């Protein structure tokens, strides 16, 4: 389990639209620099979408953990 302090959890398991990454982008827009967001997603596409956007937008992917049927993505708003 992660020891990172999570500021907001976005549980989008089973949600196809608007999609896990869209929800993360929405949360990051509203968040403060330094805040940490956790996304719980069962969508296979998240494994490529989320790391790719985090890199493009220059935020920080802290951790990715696989659970049964879904993954945890922990992202820090870096700027």
């Amino acid at each position, binding site marked *: 389990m992660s020891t990172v302090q999570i500021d907001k959890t*976005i*549980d*989008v398991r*089973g*949600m*196809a*639209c*608007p*999609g896990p*990454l*869209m*929800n993360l*982008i*929405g949360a*990051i*827009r*509203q968040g403060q620099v330094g805040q940490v967001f956790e996304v719980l997603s069962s969508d296979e*596409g998240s494994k490529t*979408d989320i790391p*790719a*956007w985090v890199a*493009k*937008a*220059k935020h920080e992917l802290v951790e990715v953990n696989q659970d049964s049927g879904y993954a945890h993505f922990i992202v820090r708003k870096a700027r």
Partner: protein
Amino acid sequence: MAAEVLILGGGVGGTIVANLVAKKSSGWAHVTVVDATGIHVYQPGFLYVAVGKEQPSALQRPETSLLRDDVSLVVDRAARVDTVARTVQLESGRTLPYDQLLLATGSRTVMDEVPGAKDAHDFYTMDGAVRLFEALKGFQGGTIVIGVAGIPYKCPPAPVEFVFLLDDYLRARGIREKSQIKLLSPLNRAFTIEATSKLVQPILAERGIELTGFFNVETVDSVAKTVSSLEGETMDYDLLVLVPPHRGQKVIEDSGLGDERGWVPVDKNTLKHTKFEHIWAVGDTTNIPISKSGSVAHYEASVAADAITAEVKGEAPPKHTYDGKVMCFLETGQGQATTIQFDYDHPPVSPTPARRWHWAKALFNKTYWHTVPQGRLP
């Protein structure tokens, strides 16, 4: 004495719930709808108003024409909910009591949250759609940029549909060759759902519509005519169309019933408020991370109506809960469309775009008034 069921908002969700509760409660409930204008607006039609294919008057009807006779309508704006006294104060100063309260107030657009975007166009309000069509009529060529300035927003397929309809419009006017259409997507593909993107992207390429991925609009410079993204890129435009940021209604925020953006936290299956008893929410109003659309409000409404009816009758909660069902159409231009259907347990599927889906959407838009608000379509 009949229980007071109070419904805030006369949109799709509020109207269906009002009619179903009045019908199913067999006199156990008196239902009142509070709506700011008393006019029911079919919002999916804004897209067509923006390209001159629909008249605003065809998208509006008096709310009373859609409600059963035994449902009361109060034309006023809800100002504050008191969850202890179980009352709702209206802007006129009037106070209404409730035993069960449905929040169906929807979302509002807040373009002024985007620095510099005050004059950007949109098709998310009737006024915005009318103004956009006026601008398009005067457009003689150049670059039209369509971007997304906030998440979540109503009707996720709408920006993609708009660029296809815009392409049709510019071709019909004979100015397509003098125009560039650029779609800025928040994701690294055209649409949130990958399977649908795979259908749509080749059509975008075929029509010469330029797609730029990972461009979440952050600021606009209306003098230099540039738009910049959260990801750090900038693009020029001659005409800018933005999906504005959305948030919940002020009454939700002022009453402490929602999160920091005014979305109401509910259980994703029962639609019951997670913190307050006797309060339910449907449609755009909720914080469920699912598409904000009339389709979701429609499918949620029967669940909320059954739950409220059971409460007023003192019966056990119904087993029927919301399963995340969404069904919507996506116009791909040139008279064709596809559909998108899924629920919490079944991933989305979209058929190959065809004329029949375009006609199905057109038929649904026309028959809506006689079927959906009355709860006649399951």
